[in-house]
């Protein structure tokens, strides 16, 4: 079987989908392609099915929050939005990895990848659960790790780790007043 030569992802993008690629970044030999959230499904579909690219294995989807407790809302340095969502793809054919990254704010939804890989289902659910980022077209966008009635998204940087006050006799009444005991 003839296997076509591997192509450079960024150049192929420019050739076939001009304007979709917003930038590239390379660190420690890891290539990152930056695209707009609305283009994410189109871009990854292109990476998966184009001759010479064939990034056909979904390794991981991770999200990161650039909120800084010192600088506060709105200041994310050189990043255009609060959250970064990184898609890590792997090519079983050419044995190489790539990262596709997009930046979103709280109120922007990203197209789902469940249409391309069913395995994206729970990875996206986890990001919704932990970061509160919505995915458009996801068949079952519910919490996966936290309880269904949990409020807030724990992996956000402005979500405190939280702890319980140690109970002594002088503050026991005050603490008990706020504990969610079952009422008769």
């Amino acid at each position, binding site marked *: 079987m003839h296997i076509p030569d591997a192509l450079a992802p960024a150049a192929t993008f420019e050739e076939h989908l001009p304007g979709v690629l917003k930038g590239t970044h390379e*660190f*420690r030999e*890891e290539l*990152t392609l930056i695209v707009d959230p609305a283009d994410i499904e189109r871009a990854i579909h292109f990476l998966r099915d184009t001759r010479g690219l064939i990034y*056909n*294995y*979904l*390794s*991981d989807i*991770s*999200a*990161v*929050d*650039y909120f800084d407790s010192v600088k506060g809302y709105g200041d994310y340095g050189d990043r255009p939005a609060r959250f*970064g969502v*990184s898609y*890590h793809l792997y090519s*079983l054919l050419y*044995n190489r*990895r790539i*990262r596709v990254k997009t930046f979103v704010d709280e109120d922007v939804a990203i197209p789902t990848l469940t249409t391309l*890989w*069913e*395995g*994206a*289902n*729970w*990875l996206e659910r*986890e990001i919704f659960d*932990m970061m509160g980022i919505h995915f458009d077209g996801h*068949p*079952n966008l519910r*919490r*996966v*790790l*936290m*309880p269904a*009635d949990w*409020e*807030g998204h*724990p*992996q956000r*940087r402005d*979500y*405190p*780790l*939280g*702890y*319980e*006050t140690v109970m002594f006799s002088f*503050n026991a009444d*005050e*603490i008990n007043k*706020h504990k*969610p005991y079952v*009422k008769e």
Partner: protein
Amino acid sequence: MATTSKRPAALEIPTGTENALGQAQTWEGSLEDLRGLVSDRAITGETMLLNLGPHHPSTHGVLRLLLELDGEEIISCLPDIGFLHTGIEKNIESKTYEKAVTLTDRMDYLAPMSNNMVFSMAVEKLTGLDVPERAQVIRVICLELTRLNSHLVWLGTHAMDLGAMSVFLYCFREREYILDLFEKLGGQRMMTSYIRPGGVWRDLTEDFLPALEKFLGYFPGRIDDYEKLLTDNPIWIDRTQGIGVVEPEEAIALALSGPCLRGSGVNYDIRKAMPYSGYENYEFNVPLGEHGDVYDRYIIRVQEMRESVKIIHQGIKKLASTSGHFRSSNRKFVPPPRAELGRSMEAVIHHFKLWTEGFSVPDEEVYVAIESPRGEIGCYLHGTGGNKPRRVHFKTPSFIHISALGKLTSGHMLADLVGIVGSIDCVLGDSDR
């Protein structure tokens, strides 16, 4: 409202019968919530909904499965996880990189070294830290011992689920010996924290290698014993062949990895594809399946145990021929040995800096994946430029494999579910983190 409690408002659980949105709260839940996830026949009551777990012994931990049954046939299966969620990723964000290693043990408690390894590798990649050759060989030996440890627990419990009780006892006997070996290495049997950024915690102890060689001497015979009990056993074959079949295309679409992916015949082993820690210098085979059923996944794991023994043998040989230290001597990242502290002022400064502030990594992101006993375990690490990570995310194989359970089990009998859940080798600490 003045309160001594430091709980943020978002965590307060509303009292009364209404939640914060004004919706009535009930404990029963509604079948309407399941519309679209189970078939419509379940809503009308034609098929039965059965709750399996989270305290069922065959679920290997706290996995809850909501099953829709038509007689004994599974129509749909909804896995529910999170009962073991401990917020490890969130906790690591408040710890320095060296301290975070101990938390990674607690994810996949049957393969702690793999977790240490993937996190350490991510830190090394971000900082550009070197790992001496001797440390790499020790790491390979540890990783393969971990694979044996994990596969032994898997084989024992999987066989016991399907009714072969004695295999369990034999497997745990050998596993006990491996845990003793780990104790010799790092002083801990399960939560080893032995692999650290820059190498391993300390050099091999004197009694480790003789004990390891003794183990390698008798262990291949023990694998023969397990195979004698199972491989040609007609009951075992009846229970496992043709059950839980995954086609190769389906396996890739479901993002399976490890023995579950190779059981379907997809040749993807990160030790071969993207070698780390010097795996390119070892000779070993990657067993592949043909049918993608429970039996193939069993055979692959058994053969992987034999390959691991081969790798460890080669590792011991390499150990004799490699010189060098067991840990990087870059003092900006690795604390100096205790003996140096009495002699060198610089060592004292480095020691103090590393154990108080820790080291800083650049404000960049990396993704590192290695082949854990269960499959591809990945670590996404994003630094801040300071001494604590901005975000660490573990892509764990159990999480992905449990998400595929619905696909794997539909159309099978309820009794086969136990075999399928066993064959994907899920550890709930790994999936829930």
